[in-house]
């Protein structure tokens, strides 16, 4: 039930943003459609329930967004340096890292964040093991790679999704 309610709220906000108006008729139609979809397509969904809605978690979400955007820009600067350097300094490899996150959403966000940040790319995920293609391998063992890649985001995501 909580899942359906959260899904309804998400869909409703998407609807309002898409229409860009607060016309009561549109809102009523949107509410009907969102209600229908949230019950028809969300019978088993446990995605949104993983989100922690405490004030601390919300504050951490904002911090995460800023950290993430910073990392995204850094990623592009480093990758453009690599691409434009005549010698093409790459040192690729696939490493294994471990995450402490238990919820599925948390792991998904972590995998996406890793994909979009400097030189790392989530190739496969199996439970708590992530296999990451790294353009510039700095450490080949699990702990070292985990420290390099995962820990930047994990401390925020742990609070957000538990």
């Amino acid at each position, binding site marked *: 039930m909580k899942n359906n309610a959260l*899904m309804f709220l*998400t*869909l409703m906000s*998407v*609807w309002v943003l*898409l*229409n860009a108006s607060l*016309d009561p*008729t*549109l809102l009523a*139609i949107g509410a009907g*459609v*969102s209600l229908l*979809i*949230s019950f028809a*397509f*969300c019978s088993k*969904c*446990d*995605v*949104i329930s993983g989100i922690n809605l405490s004030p601390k978690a919300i504050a951490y979400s904002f911090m995460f967004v800023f950290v993430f955007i910073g990392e995204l820009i850094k990623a592009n600067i480093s990758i453009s340096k690599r691409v434009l350097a005549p010698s093409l300094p790459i040192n690729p490899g696939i490493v294994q890292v471990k995450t402490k996150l238990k919820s*599925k*959403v948390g*792991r*998904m966000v972590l*995998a*996406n964040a890793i994909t979009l940040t400097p030189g790392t790319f*989530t190739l*496969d*995920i*199996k439970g708590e093991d992530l296999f990451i293609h790294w353009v510039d391998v700095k450490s080949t063992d699990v702990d070292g790679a985990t420290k390099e890649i995962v820990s930047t985001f994990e401390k925020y995501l742990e609070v957000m999704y538990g």
Partner: protein
Amino acid sequence: MDKKFMVALLVAAMAVILFPLFQSFEGGTQLSELGQYYTQNGVSDTGATNLVASVVVTYRGLDTLGEVTILFLAASIISFFLSVSKDDRIENRTVMSVTEILSTASQTLVPIIVLVGAYILVNGHLTPGGGFQGGAIIASGTLLMFLANPNHKLNHTIIHVIESTSGIAFVAIGVIGVLMMDGGFLSNKLFDLGTPGEVISAGAMPLINIFLGLKVGTELSNVLGIFVESQNEK
């Protein structure tokens, strides 16, 4: 005769035939008579700001009915040839496991894609879009559902009910237009035309768009479902 030479000869002949046409082409400097009528009277006739939708749904509504019929026929033929009876299904199938990321993300993405489809349906008479477009987007949401879970069971009963109901409703609106109003088939003077640009306007057009979209969406989803299920045949 060399085959390539024949092809080249054919292409050259086509070029010679088409060149005068190409040379005399002047681009669309002036609208045709019909186009002029639509652009001048479209909004006041139908109350819809999206002219394309008003042509598709109202002026040439009968053609749209034909298109929907063709789609229905295609879906029926596919389900006739490809549907797998319960006895023919294999017990167990070995498949590549779907990554956790996709199955998690699809739970939020599928509802949002379907919502966008609904948005395009509802606003079909105001902004670019309409029944076919919204239906196709809803069906692509179904496709994502199948990609995330290849063994998802589509509820065929509900889909058939929605499909038949919306099809009947679509034809019913058309027939009511003929019987009660002077507008002819699929007349949208069934309801008040309202102010162009508002959600509830353009007479019966939003309703027709929604039924059309539901029909197209469920039909395409059904086709996809049959294709996926036919993978499990012995």
